[in-house]
């Protein structure tokens, strides 16, 4: 059932590409149908998989001479992330209902990206995972370069090159692991059981981990994220923050930690208090949390605030991974889901609800527009999303970050203390953005004041309302009853930790 998410998306992309130009309406509905069907499959697979461990969906030899299998499988982690992808895909389409320029191509690239993302989450063959991972790069480039805004070609190229360099590192790791294991298989399970030498894991782990972490926005390789998010059209930035960054984090977890668990062992010596790759990456994650939050506090562009907040929140995911205990890892996966939903919502509000109407994202200009009164729906949606983003109890972010913090406390208490500072700054920048964008009743200067009265910003349309409702309710549901996901995540995490990987 889950495998259909992939096929449906690619088939949808192909149909969109073949669709004649000018039929924007058909293109939209087709994309929405495909995405909704995909979501149904994802939900179906999630419900079916409750209480089950890893289940193999498809396993056929693909390149027999090299032992490569087309191996799709799902465990709790995959199921949750596939569910997230389904949600993000539907929401993204709802928020790109107003794309009029080359609509069918937009959705073709969009669905191809979604298909690649589904594929990564469901692949249990390193090689296949890599293939899907790379498939996702190209559509991202075109989505941003063609339909983006601020410095779109720069942002798109930067994103494409960062992704490709990251995947080049992963490919080197893949080739090295394949030739070192001698197991004549690229299946993640076989490679994990191949008994890769510890010294090999020690250098291959950071290579692969950093390769994936580039896409997860790990400091100092995060700089593609803010520029890419800002340049991207709304739906693409929702997907970037919502699922593409999760691809990176998922790769870190599934491949990095799963295949090379000994890469995290202590080196036996320490440098500046860092005694293992685990310390190094945890430190980078912490820097990411604090740095992202501080930079978000200083932005003048609304979307950059959200872009940097993503870097900060993804820091929690990486920190959670480095705790290497069950609660921390489960928290990291939950944070992936939660951030995917909340960041998607934030980008939708900034990009679709506000920017597409006001055509500016500068706080200085938004301040005089009285958006709280003129776009009350956007304002209140942002209040809710902002609270979710800050990690207020009742929303998914709270549970996720709490778990990560507990996990970090068990690992090293000072990690928790430092990450806690990040949360406080997170409250500050969200509050600041909220205040300046919506509730700052600055009187417009005479030059700013339009002579013919305020232009009509346009009513909020049904796709926007549906999208906001979908994402908000998801975050609330998970926040109020986190067991709905945790029951699925925890056994998978436990298996991953116990099995020396898989």
């Amino acid at each position: 059932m889950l495998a259909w998410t992939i096929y449906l998306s690619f088939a949808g992309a192909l149909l969109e590409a073949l669709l004649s130009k000018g039929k924007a309406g058909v293109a939209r509905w087709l994309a929405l149908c495909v995405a909704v069907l995909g979501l149904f499959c994802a939900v179906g697979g999630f419900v079916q998989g409750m209480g089950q461990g890893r289940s193999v969906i498809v396993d056929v030899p693909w390149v027999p001479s090299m032992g490569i299998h087309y191996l799709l499988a799902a465990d709790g982690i995959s199921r949750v992330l596939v569910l997230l992808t389904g949600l993000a895909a539907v929401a993204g389409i709802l928020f790109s209902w107003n794309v009029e320029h080359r609509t069918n191509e937009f959705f073709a690239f969009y669905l191809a990206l979604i298909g690649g993302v589904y594929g990564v989450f469901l692949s249990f063959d390193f090689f296949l995972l890599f293939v899907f991972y790379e498939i996702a790069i190209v559509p991202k480039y075109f989505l941003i370069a063609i339909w983006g805004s601020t410095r779109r070609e720069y942002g798109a190229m930067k994103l494409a090159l960062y992704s490709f360099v990251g995947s080049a590192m992963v490919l080197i790791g893949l080739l090295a692991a394949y030739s070192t294991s001698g197991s004549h298989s690229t299946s993640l399970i076989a490679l994990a059981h191949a008994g890769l030498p510890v010294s090999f894991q020690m250098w291959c782990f950071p290579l692969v981990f950093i390769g994936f972490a580039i896409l997860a926005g790990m400091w100092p390789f995060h700089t593609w994220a803010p520029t890419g998010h800002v340049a991207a059209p709304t739906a693409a930035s929702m997907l970037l923050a919502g699922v593409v960054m999760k691809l990176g984090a998922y790769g870190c977890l599934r491949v990095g930690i799963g295949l090379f668990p000994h890469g995290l062992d202590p080196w036996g010596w320490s440098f500046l208090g860092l005694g293992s790759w685990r310390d190094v990456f945890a430190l980078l994650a912490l820097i990411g949390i604090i740095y992202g939050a501080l930079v978000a506090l200083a932005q003048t562009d609304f979307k950059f605030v959200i872009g940097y907040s993503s870097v900060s929140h993804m820091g929690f995911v990486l920190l959670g991974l480095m705790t290497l205990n069950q609660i921390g890892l489960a928290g990291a996966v939950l944070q992936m889901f939660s951030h995917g939903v909340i960041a998607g919502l934030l980008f939708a509000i900034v990009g679709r609800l506000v920017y597409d109407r006001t055509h500016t994202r500068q706080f200085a200009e938004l301040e005089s527009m009285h958006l709280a009164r003129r776009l009350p729906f956007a304002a209140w949606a942002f209040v809710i999303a902002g609270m979710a983003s800050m990690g207020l109890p009742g929303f998914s972010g709270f549970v996720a970050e709490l778990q990560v913090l507990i996990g970090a406390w068990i690992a090293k208490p000072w990690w928790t203390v430092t990450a806690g500072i990040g949360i406080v700054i997170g409250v500050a920048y969200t509050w600041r953005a909220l205040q300046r964008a919506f509730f700052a009743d600055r009187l417009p200067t005479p030059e700013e004041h339009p002579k013919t009265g305020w232009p009509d910003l346009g009513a909020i349309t049904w796709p926007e309302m549906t999208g906001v409702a979908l994402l908000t309710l998801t975050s609330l549901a998970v926040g109020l009853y986190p067991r709905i996901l945790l029951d699925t995540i925890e056994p998978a995490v436990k298996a991953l930790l116990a099995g020396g990987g898989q």
Partner: protein
Amino acid sequence: MNYADLFRITLPETVLEIAALFALIVDLGLVRKAALQMRVAVAALVGVIGCGVAIWSLSMQPTIGLSYGAGSKLILLGVGGYITAAQIGILLLTGVTLLLFTGSVFTRHAGEYVAVVLMSAAGGLLIAAAQDLLVIFIGLELLSLGLYILTAFAKSSAKSAESAMKYYLFGGTSAAFLLFGFSYLYGITGSTNLHEILLQLHQGELYQATPLLNVAVVLIIAGLGFKVAAVPFHLWAPDTYEGAPAPAAAFIASVSKVASFALLIGIATTAVHVFDAPGPSPTEQGAHPGFGGPWMVLLVTLATASMVLGNLAALAQISVRRLLAYSAIAHAGYMLIAVAFFSYSPLSSNAILYYILTYGLTTIGAFGVISVVERATGSDRFDAFLGLHKRNPLLAGVLLVLFLSLAGIPPLVGFWAKFNLFAAVLNLSAGVVPFTLVALAVAMSAVSLYYYLQVLKRAYVMPAVDETPIKAHPVTLVVLVTIAAAVVVLGCVPALLQNWIAGF
């Protein structure tokens, strides 16, 4: 050796030569008065049929190679294995470039063009099979002389003449180097047979004793490095790719490369199989014997220089043809790694062959797209591709697939070729040097995405200056779409081509 055997083993070459003469006769005799388009189509058709018959005639070849004489076990011309696969590849790619010729109008001499292409291809077939220095040299010259003529074929274009002259001068010099190196080898060992030479080198004390061997190897590498356009013998490539008429450039970029790499595979295969029969005894050494001398060091140097310089220089180009030339240099660099680290099993030769065949196909397609765009806009600059997705969506789609494949994005065939190649290298030896080379190659292909995207950006992203539709010749369009489809299908089912190559 008797002439019947010689005839049977060179049947494909003979077929090509006959087809070449036939093309001349038909063009100059039968359809002389017809319109140029018609003559081009007829000549190309004759050529394609000739290639088809040549492929069929490959099955009539004897199963063992041609030896020097009744008592000799040494092989002059080989058959089977990678040789047949490479020959079929050469013939197929020649056929495709001839089909692209139907859509172009750069010359009035259709018959001559096809004849020269076929004769060149015959030279390519020869060097793919040759095991003797003299045959190698003759084959190379037959191939190269044809290429010089083809480069100059657009007589009304000054660029074409200039680039042909450059190509010829470089080619002549490097042929002299090669021959000089061959003469040293003969002088050291007293034989012109590759196998005999290598055996002598390994058995005698010649192996370490003489600096003459080093000189010979350096000279030979220089000569062969020119053929595959490896840095620092690459200087002809950008000019030739830029000046030659598009179908000729496609031929140079694909068929000539396939033949040259088949030759390198041949030399490397013989080198690692030195102690097999008919030698006195199978190898007792643990390691596979190589060519000796500074062979490997030179190849590694060439490979590294080609990858780095090819990719970095491509970044600075604004002409798509020159970009393809530098990318060809980079791709040659990747393959040279696998030539340097060559396995005893056919793993390496299959991987290189897989790479060069798919690369050749992709490049032909790329040149096909360029030729259509050039005819419409009169330029191959990046800006000529502006708004291609509006002017001809199908062509833009083909360009997208081909360039992404060249950049090595899965699931297209270029990615598999790279993976296959690098896996073969690491499978042989996961030492520091091969691993570093592979890592460098992967890193450099990340660089390559940038310049391929520069072209695709023009085609898809940037607004068009001129939105008039571009019309392509129907045959060209069909060929291009077929190539793009093959790139996708072979990428999704890589085992198809792998098994085909391994099946010989």
